[in-house]
């Protein structure tokens, strides 16, 4: 080895050492911006095999996730719900920032798989069918909750969680909280706040809070004054015995004057 090659090697080491802080800073910035959140652990290695793991490590996480998603679609066509759940788990591990994958995985589990479990003709016991259905509801909810942990800055999965809690678990208090949290996030559509109010109204002990929330929305103007909101607000005014002067019709009049 001549002196040039030795110097080149030494310079590489020196450069490697000098660049370490830059690399670490860039890595921290990337993680803060929600990049590189995939957990490359032995569990993932077992699920996608050695070649898949190598591909995922080499920057081909998204194509790999797309290929697995096609497999999940085939499993869906064959109504292999268990296999689908496993593939969804892998896809969401590979692409934890993809709202679409979390959302679709939860939808397939909480809606399609749950309905299929309830209509399963091979299972004569209704109790077991209901149990299987609840298990799929739980799986759907689990996908959404994990998706929210990975995407705390986006409203979409919180809305979906609210819908699952409302329609599948009939837990109106938790659904209201999910919609409220969604409404507080950037770009959240106006319906999130309304949905939070509707659910809060059904949550025992939070009627007053719901009334105040809905009234605040009503006072925001025409964009929030939808028939469902107005009807619910009128109903709550009666239930909570709100004085006539504070009711929305009178506030309408005071707006006009």
């Amino acid at each position: 080895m001549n002196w040039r090659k030795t110097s080149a090697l030494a310079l590489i080491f020196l450069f490697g050492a000098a660049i370490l802080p830059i690399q670490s800073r860039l890595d921290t910035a990337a993680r803060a911006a929600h990049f590189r959140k995939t957990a490359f652990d032995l569990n993932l290695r077992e699920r996608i095999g050695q070649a898949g793991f190598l591909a995922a490590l080499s920057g081909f996480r998204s194509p790999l996730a797309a290929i697995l998603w096609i497999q999940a679609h085939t499993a869906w066509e064959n109504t292999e719900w268990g296999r689908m759940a496993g593939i969804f788990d892998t896809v969401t591990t590979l692409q934890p920032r993809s709202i679409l994958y979390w959302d679709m995985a939860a939808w397939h589990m909480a809606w399609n798989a749950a309905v299929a479990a309830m209509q399963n003709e091979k299972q004569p016991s209704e109790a077991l069918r209901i149990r299987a259905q609840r298990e799929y509801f739980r799986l759907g909810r689990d996908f959404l909750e994990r998706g929210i942990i990975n995407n705390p800055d986006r409203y979409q999965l919180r809305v979906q969680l609210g819908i699952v809690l409302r329609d599948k678990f009939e837990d109106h208090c938790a659904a209201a909280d999910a919609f409220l949290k969604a409404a507080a996030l950037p770009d959240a559509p106006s319906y999130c706040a309304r949905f939070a109010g509707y659910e809060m109204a059904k949550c025992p002990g939070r009627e007053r809070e719901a009334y105040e929330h809905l009234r605040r929305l009503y006072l925001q103007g025409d964009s929030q004054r939808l028939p469902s909101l107005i009807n619910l607000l009128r109903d709550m005014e009666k239930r909570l015995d709100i004085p006539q002067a504070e009711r929305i019709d009178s506030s309408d009049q005071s707006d006009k004057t």
Partner: protein
Amino acid sequence: MKLLGVTLAIARNTFTELVRQKVFYFLLIFALLVIGNSAFMAKFSFQEQFQMLKDISLGAMSVFGSIIAILATANFLPKDMEDRTIYTILAKPVPRFSYLLGKLCGIFSLLAVSILLMSALFLAVLWIREGTVLAETRAQLQGGSAEEIAAAVKEVTTATFNINLIPGIVVIFFKSALLAALTLFLSTFATSSIFTILMATALYFIGHLQSTAREYWLAGVDVQWWSRILAALVSLLFPDLQAFNLTDDIIAGTAVPMALFAGTVGLGILYISVYFSLSALVFSGREL
């Protein structure tokens, strides 16, 4: 000034030579992949279609970019020696570093043109698919309120184009350029192109593990001394290629902050400059 002219002439020549080697035929495969993918995905929802189209296209762009970078760079030195063109060039007042820089610039041009063509093809397919989905959406919502139609159109357009795709594509170019510079460095002391290609491919995989090794080393986990030394060696010797993998998360909808994009591009330029300087250093003493 004269040196710049020489370098540019070598770069132009390298680019023309690579084009004559029908390198762009790979675009046919890329086109088949993108258009075929788009046609095959018709049974999926439009969000799934767009996501998969982006996944496959950007993944393919990264693969093709890396392959072109490694193969084109690994071949030029042995080929120039075999053809004896290197002797004709270096017999003239052309410094060795100028020759290397010209060659590297020619390869960078090829990479830039390839990535531009692939991007144009990908964006065209995406645009056509968007047009089809928009027409279908409008037809389905005929008679609906203007607000409903606007919301549905917005949903389609948001799922299709994302301004962050552009920095993602730029970073793919810098990753390929970095691989080209690294391969050039290897080829300055390698004795055959096969050796260079194999080494560069191995470095490609090791480079993607560099950040993991660095984290392991710097975290100071209480493990055996030899495994810490190995992690330190990997961290210091190899480039961090994982830093250039932004597209996976961009496709998933993550926005790239300007500082992160600039930092990544800066890191790429730094790596390229260092690997080129080292190549020039080793090549200046090489017996031809």
